[in-house]
């Protein structure tokens, strides 16, 4: 008996030592934490035309238009990230963005006004939203939750119309790719 107790104590000590890693692994990430990471990962698999940026060293800016479901998670995720020599920053906007100020535009809810504004922005803006309807309204990537897992669908035609090059790897992990 005593041996069993000792073994358990030893195991507990090891678990304690590995605490930072195990707690993170054990702790199930929230939906928007995952979505924040996905947003960052999209940047890594997509190529923007040079005209999409104001300057050569302009950061890749992720703009949250309207309601912000991420909170500070988004900022934490993007902190210090650099993709293809450009920093990745997140910003919240309440009005339609000016051209070349946003490379990724996240809209939690699709509105007519927003669609009008987006089409006015010209090429070089990736639109990310929620639900499959988003794609029917010329959105490019739409999150959805399936079996408590975050997935996404891609409207490839819309993305290509916006002069964005989507990596085949990205396409291979999408749940659906609409042509």
């Amino acid at each position, binding site marked *: 008996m005593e041996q069993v107790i000792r073994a358990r104590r030893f195991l507990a000590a090891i678990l304690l030592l590995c605490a930072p*890693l195990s707690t*993170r*692994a054990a702790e199930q990430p929230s939906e928007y934490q995952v979505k924040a990471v*996905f947003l960052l*990962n999209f940047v*890594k*698999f997509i190529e923007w035309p040079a005209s999409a940026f104001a300057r050569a060293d302009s950061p890749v800016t992720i703009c949250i238009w309207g309601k912000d479901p991420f909170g500070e998670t988004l900022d934490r995720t993007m902190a210090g*990230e*650099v*993709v*293809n020599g450009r920093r990745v920053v997140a910003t919240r906007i309440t009005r339609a963005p000016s051209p070349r100020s946003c490379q990724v535009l996240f809209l939690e809810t699709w509105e007519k006004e927003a669609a009008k504004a987006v089409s006015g922005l010209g090429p070089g803006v990736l639109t990310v939203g929620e639900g499959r309807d988003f794609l029917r309204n010329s959105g490019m990537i739409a999150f959805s939750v399936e079996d408590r*897992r975050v997935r*996404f669908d891609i409207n490839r035609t819309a993305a290509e119309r916006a002069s964005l090059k989507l*990596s085949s*790897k*990205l396409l*291979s*992990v999408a749940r659906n790719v609409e042509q």
Partner: protein
Amino acid sequence: MRPFRDIPIRQKLMLIVMVTTGAAMLFAATGVVALDSFLFRNSLRRDLSSLAQIIADNSTAAAAFSDERSAAETLNALRARPHVASACIYLVDGTMLAGYSRAGETDTCPAARGSNELRFGSSGVTVSQAIVLSGRRVGTLMLFYDLGEITERIEVFGAIVLGVLLMSSVIAFLLSSRLRSIIATSISQLVSASRSVSETNDYSIRARKVSNDELGVLADRFNEMLAGIQSRDDTLRAALRDREEALHDAETARERFRFMAESMPQKIFTATPRGDVDYFNQQWTEFTGLAFKAIQNWGWTQFVHPGDLKANLDQWRHSLETGEPLLFQRRLCRADGEYRWHLSRVHPMRDEQGAISMWIGSDTDIHEQKEKEQELRLANEDLQQFAYSASHDLQEPVRNVTIYSEVISRRYQRVLDAEGLQFLGFLTEGGRRLATLINDLLAYTRAGVLESETAPVNSSLVLEMTLSSLAEAIRESGASLTYDSLPEIAMSEAHLQQVFQNLIGNALKYRREERPQIHISAVREDGGWRFSVRDNGIGINPLYKEKIFGVFKRLHRNDKYSGTGIGLAICQRVVERYGGRIWVESEPRRGATFYFTVPETTPRIPSRPVDSAAGGGQSS
């Protein structure tokens, strides 16, 4: 089991070849296997790490978006590599995104590791590869490669190596059995040759030379050695045969010598170079009545007359030292005690190098001869004595005859008629000639007497004295007389004067019409002096060269050259008394030269001196 060094060379060679080949093959095979496994590991390492990289690269999106389906699809591509037993993709938080295991197996995936690594284990290789997206790690690929392939490879290699070993051993065996005969034949040739030589002692046997290598050289040397032994053997046999023949010859020669020595009337003996007498013939033992043992070596001295022994020994030792032959007269004691005179001659026998190998001596009995000689000498001496005293005693009456015939012719000249005076003249002349004759005879007998002591005499002085006594005759003839300086010699003054007087007198007497020219000289000769008296007179017919030295021998009638015919006889007697010689060289009408020699030392020939009356007689 026999030690290696004792097994036959044939097997040794086989063993060496097999062991060498086996070792070389084993080493080579080990090397090949080791190199192959090294190269295989290296290529496997490269192969596996590139495989892992490709899969990790293809899994970036799957890992980034936690897409299990896509990850599983990527991993399924590993089906093409049957040795990949299992593979997994882990996310950064440690959860497994997708797993793969070989069909029909349920291998569990290795746990995720932090770093890129490739670890060889006992059963396989574990590969850990990070999945990186834009410099950030998004997951880990783990891969387990089962090493069954290596084992298979080693098995195949082992089988090949074993096969090659076996094959090469068989080939080496076959080849070496052919090759070793090359060496083994040479050696067995040598062995069989040496065996038959030692068994038969026949040195004409030769080993057959099979090759030109060291064994060929060995065979040549062996054969040369045999040839050397053979020739030495032959030489030895020949030498033995020669020696036997020489011994036989020597034996024959010895027998012949013995037989010769025994059959001789003389007494024969031989002595060693040191003078030990080692042989006496039978005549000796018969004569002395002593056994050989008693007289051998120096035992002979016991039968030599004590009066002769010392001189005998001295001369014998002298001969032994110098190697000169010995000639000696001695008296030897006969068995009945009587001493008999013997002439003893001993000669050295020399070998090829000139060293004395032995002495051979003979003794001849000269007793009879010696006695006769003695008798003769005594008779001669008696005769001489008689002649001396006769001529001495005759002088007186003859002188009376001469004197009184002269007295008569002076005093009674007128009384006697012419015929009587003529008869008286014949008487006076005859008396005078008789007196001269008697004087000469006296001189002749006196010439035979050798004075006991002969002091050296200056011959020049003697010559001058002679010339002064001949002064009258020289003056009358008008002769010219010359002479060289003459030596001192061992001769009695009177004797030398006699010789000079006769020779010079003859030269003056037997002259031709012209003025006589006479020259006296002396030259040194072996062992003495040679005198010569040369004239330019009538000379002597060579027919009479010897005759003229006889007593009363005259070549001319009395009326032409007066003389008694005794002068040259006196000269010969004197010269021979001193051991010299006298002779003449001449041609008729060309003059004559008389020579006589005087030895340095006069041999003392023992002779009984003429009675002391001789000396007295002369003075009276």
